């Protein structure tokens, strides 16, 4: 149907490749070339991380940053996980990975729960001054946390929680309140008020409506909140390095110590393996649930 034939008017006789078409094709080629460069810039480092982690030290020192390992070995990974020396102890990353998990999971769950209730209260059960309360809670999003480091330190010591996992959980929960509250409140604004009114007329109360009506409507925002909080808490360094002991340190601190400590020979392949291990949880979350990631990040961009 679309192939030119002799019966067709003159213009199609010039064939398929007209000047306009050529220009369009050239544009596409340049476009994809540029995009390839961009992709190389962003994906390259990850590739290097992975491939170097499977090389042996002599091979690394011989150069060839971009080449695949000649004889891939997982030794670096074993070392990174179980034997690498971080600080004084030489037990690898697994302990610190565990520390991060034990800290992150409760902190994420609790802060998301609190944020959800706060957001629900502010969006669906307004009262005089609610706007002010919202602003007061959400302002915490913009504060540089350096400004509270010292008093938090003092408080934790007073409470006997300094250097403990519980202390870190407490801190992450408290300072997670602004972002989770903002996220949920903005989402709950879009839940129809009539649903709430109907339930109240039927006699339901604050928490019943929350658990039985509002929450079931919110799986997407809950996922976004969980991902946002988990990423923030897992990747956090400032609080981790300020308020932990060598034994209770989360992953980020351990990784930094491993790589940036200045004694001994630098086993680069081990460092790379360790870095991948550290980045793995959030990276996997991103691969699986990428669009929720985006919604979470842009939630910070959309003001209430």
């Amino acid at each position: 149907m679309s192939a030119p034939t002799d019966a067709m008017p003159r213009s199609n006789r010039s064939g398929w490749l007209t000047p306009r078409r050529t220009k369009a094709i050239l544009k596409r080629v340049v476009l994809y070339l540029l995009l390839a460069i961009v992709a190389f810039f962003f994906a390259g480092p990850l590739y290097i991380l992975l491939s170097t982690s499977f090389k042996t030290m002599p091979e690394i020192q011989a150069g060839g940053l971009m080449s695949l390992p000649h004889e891939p070995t997982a030794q670096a990974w074993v070392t990174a996980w179980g034997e690498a020396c971080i600080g004084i102890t030489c037990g690898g990353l697994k302990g610190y990975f565990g520390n991060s998990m034990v800290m992150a999971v409760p902190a994420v769950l609790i802060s998301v729960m609190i944020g959800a209730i706060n957001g629900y209260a502010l969006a669906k059960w307004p009262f005089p001054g609610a706007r002010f309360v919202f602003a007061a809670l959400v302002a915490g999003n913009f504060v540089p946390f350096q400004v509270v480091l010292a008093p938090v330190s003092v408080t934790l010591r007073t409470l006997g929680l300094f250097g403990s996992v519980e202390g870190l959980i407490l801190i992450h929960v408290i300072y997670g309140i602004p972002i989770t509250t903002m996220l949920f409140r903005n989402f709950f604004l879009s839940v129809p008020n009539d649903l709430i009114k109907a339930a109240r007329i039927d006699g339901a109360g604050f928490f019943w409506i929350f658990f039985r009506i509002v929450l079931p409507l919110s799986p997407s925002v809950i996922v976004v909140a969980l991902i946002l909080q988990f990423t923030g808490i897992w990747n956090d360094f400032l609080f981790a390095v300020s308020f932990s002991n060598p034994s209770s340190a989360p992953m980020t601190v351990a990784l930094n110590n491993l790589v940036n400590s200045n004694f001994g020979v630098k086993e680069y392949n081990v460092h790379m393996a360790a870095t991948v291990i550290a980045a793995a949880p959030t990276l996997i979350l991103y691969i699986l649930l990428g669009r929720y990631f985006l919604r979470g990040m842009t939630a910070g961009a959309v003001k209430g």
Partner: protein
Amino acid sequence: MRRFLQRHVSQVALSPSLALIAIFLYGFIAYTAAVSTTNSKAFPRFDTFVGLEQYWRLFHTPRWHVAFTNMFLFGGLFLLVTISLGLLIAILIDQRIRAESFFRSIVMYPMAMSFVVTGIIWQWLLNPTLGIEVMMHQLGFESFRLDWLTNPDTVIWALVVAAFWQGCGLVMALFLAGLRGIDEDIWKAAAVDGIPAWRVYVFIVIPMLAPVFLTVVVLLSLSIVRAFDLVVALTNGGPGVSSDLPSVFMFDMAFRRTNLGLSAASAGVMLGTVLAILIPYLYVETRERA
């Protein structure tokens, strides 16, 4: 009592959070502000009131000068690079390409990583004996030098590149969303009017994206003031203190140099900078809404 609780459930539910934030945020800010007016060293001591002397001392500390100016230098470069390239990449991806979600994911995945990880990665890549410099030598460019990490004058670029690598994804995503929101008919009208594509972008599309620019600038600026993890992992403020930033300075003063008063003063300045960015932004936003 029960009646009161029932009628004010909402407020009751919010009060623990409000109380916690009141104490741990506003209370602690006040605390730090108070400490910044004392001569505390290793421990906060409110009996050593010295007024604004710590701020005075701060501005006469050479290291702080470096850190503070670095913030603007790094910030300015970072904003310029990330916004222009982020917009450019968004435009490229907006051209109805195949495998669009693939390219989007590739640009955005660094967002998922910790700044520590990013800092470590770029520390290797910029390492003269291991990283890009070696690769270029092996490719034949013998005289290629990438000494950003060891040269105090150019180390700030190391921070910019690493921060761009991580932050570009979000900026691109925001610009892409903005581009997608532009009425298709505008493009058609421009095609019929005979306006070349680049002019459409410069004179029509980019002005239409002004709100996105504003959001991006504010968001990025806030993260610049807070930048800590990246510096520690990438350069640790070095070489020397040439890549120092206010956050690192503050941390050092508090936990290593045991000079809480000075540290608090630096934190106060950081907060002031944040407010200087936020307040005009909020003013503009609320004015537009009204």
